[in-house]
């Protein structure tokens, strides 16, 4: 068993570091409904961690707990070994946790470039007055961050649409812009909520490639929710399986494939 500070090297030669985030006995209730029941798992630095489960298992709720949108009734979120105090979603973002949404949540009235630049907002500190006269620090920051944004835009191959308003883009490109907006903030953990929902095979392949590249080139730690089993098994280092708000499996894709509880949850179980 690995210790929380140990690191190891995967079969394909990537180094997975110590634990960045640990969920300790999280329980989340909405009135009488228990969405998440006593779940614990951890996310290690540099790994791709998948959360899977049937519909209504509580995956998105789990992601919302991590991004600070829901506050669990019981349990703790440990970030870099320290318990994270209750904070507003924008404070969580300032700590370096970025996410994408299941239903695209881009700013429709803005161009692709502005959407991506918005992702840099925690890196910019010039005040209202400096920005009003557009001199000195404000202008300099704008240029520096534009360079960073352009790098991500290049990387995700959306240069040709950078000045297009997002509302005019097709679905697949919107998903990519959303990934760009999350990625450009150089997050320590990147949360992807169904990055491949509603895509065709070709788009899924593109997106999978991007996710692997993001992990490889930027060393980003990724936690993702996905329904496509093939994708999950190929991409992820470790998988958490949830069902009815409970954790029923946790381990490498191979462990999960042979886990009886997981097979039962997905294929059903004979009651005899």
């Amino acid at each position, binding site marked *: 068993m690995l210790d929380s500070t140990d690191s190891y090297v995967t079969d394909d030669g990537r180094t997975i570091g110590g634990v960045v985030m640990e969920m300790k006995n999280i329980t989340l209730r909405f009135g009488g409904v228990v969405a998440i029941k006593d779940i614990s798992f951890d996310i290690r630095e540099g790994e791709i961690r998948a959360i899977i489960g049937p519909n209504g298992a509580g995956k998105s709720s789990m992601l919302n707990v991590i991004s600070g949108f829901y506050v669990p009734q019981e349990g703790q979120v440990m970030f870099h070994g320290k318990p994270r105090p209750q904070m507003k979603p*924008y404070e969580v973002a300032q700590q370096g946790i970025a996410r994408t949404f299941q239903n695209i*949540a881009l700013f429709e009235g803005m161009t692709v470039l502005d959407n991506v630049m*918005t992702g840099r907002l925690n890196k910019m500190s010039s005040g209202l007055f400096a920005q009003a006269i557009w001199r000195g620090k404000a202008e300099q920051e704008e240029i520096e961050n534009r360079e960073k944004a352009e790098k991500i835009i290049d990387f995700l191959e959306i240069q040709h649409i950078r000045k297009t308003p997002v509302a005019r883009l097709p679905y697949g490109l919107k998903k990519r812009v959303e990934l760009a907006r999350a990625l450009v903030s150089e997050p320590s953990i990147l949360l992807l909520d169904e990055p491949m929902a509603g895509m065709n095979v070709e788009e899924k392949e593109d997106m999978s490639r991007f996710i692997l590249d993001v992990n490889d080139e930027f060393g980003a730690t990724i936690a993702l929710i996905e329904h496509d089993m093939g994708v999950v098994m190929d991409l992820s280092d470790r998988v958490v399986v949830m069902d009815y708000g409970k954790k029923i499996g946790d381990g490498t894709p191979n462990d999960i494939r042979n886990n009886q509880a997981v097979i039962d949850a997905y294929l059903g179980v004979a009651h005899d």
Partner: protein
Amino acid sequence: MFYREAGDFKTSYTDDNQTFPIKFDRYRYYVVLTVAFGIIPFLINDYWANAFLLPFLIYSIAAIGLNILTGYCGQVSLGTGGFMAVGAYACYKLMTAFPDVNIFFHVIAAGGITAIVCTAFGLPSLRIKGFYLAVATLAAQFFLVWLFNKVSWFYNYSASGQINAPERTVFGVPVTGANTEAWATYLFCLVFLAISAIIARNLTRGMQGRKWMAIRDMDIAAEIIGVNPLRAKLSAFAVSGFFIGISGALFFAVYLGAAEAGDSFGIQKSFLVLFMIIIGGLGSIFGSFAGAAFLVLLPVALKLVGVDFLGWPTDIVAHIQLIIVGALIIIFLIAEPHGIAQLWRVAKEKLRLWPFPH
């Protein structure tokens, strides 16, 4: 055929971040500035200054202010008239309390005071949205007008309940009071408008503008990527209040000369400025100018055509004006929610290819 951007390549992000990235547009902007500062002051007369130019300049500032709040940050406000009254009364109190200070600073300080008041009335926006916020700002409108009528300290206990602008000069030339000349008042307002427009443009093209637009387009996503909704919304109220306060101060001190809160800054004023930005274009600085020009010129044009040319009675023309404005609002909301500014953009896009189909 109208290749404005042909051969105009950008080699640095500074070039690309300019207010007018296309050379042709930049030259057109310089031409407009030259005409506005260098030619109009020599041609101006009292009729054109009072009927069109001064109200256009002053309402443009108010429209820019409201556009930042409503068009960019998505917070509907019906309190513009009340906030203009704050600017006017603040300017009046400052002018009478510190007669030695240049009026230029009085107007800016009036803007600052309005920004504070506007921020205070923006606090409900943290909890409520849309129509409900509009009603809350409506309360601000009525409360502020009531306050300025009720508390006689605001109008220095004058018997008429009015505020009257004393004569003040800039570089020895009177800009307020009875003995002003058209070109001086025009230039005084133009300077404020030019500075306001540049500041508004700088704020909206940078990170502050992106935060506002993020809140407008999807406030939950904005918060999750790190926008502090409290600061974003209140800063929009503050900046908007600053511009609206300046326009209120100019409207009273330079244009009207004498004002009374209920008559000059009533609910009609709030709607007028709101209509300007709806017709001109929400979320566009150019749209603020276009909307203000349109709604200021419309009565003048109607009077020229209806009363002077066709010989109709004045009251009928006034009613026709109401009908036209109402119809235009409905047409714009249905057919082109982004207003004249969008029509302008579409026209430019079409002209690029005209007369070829592709």
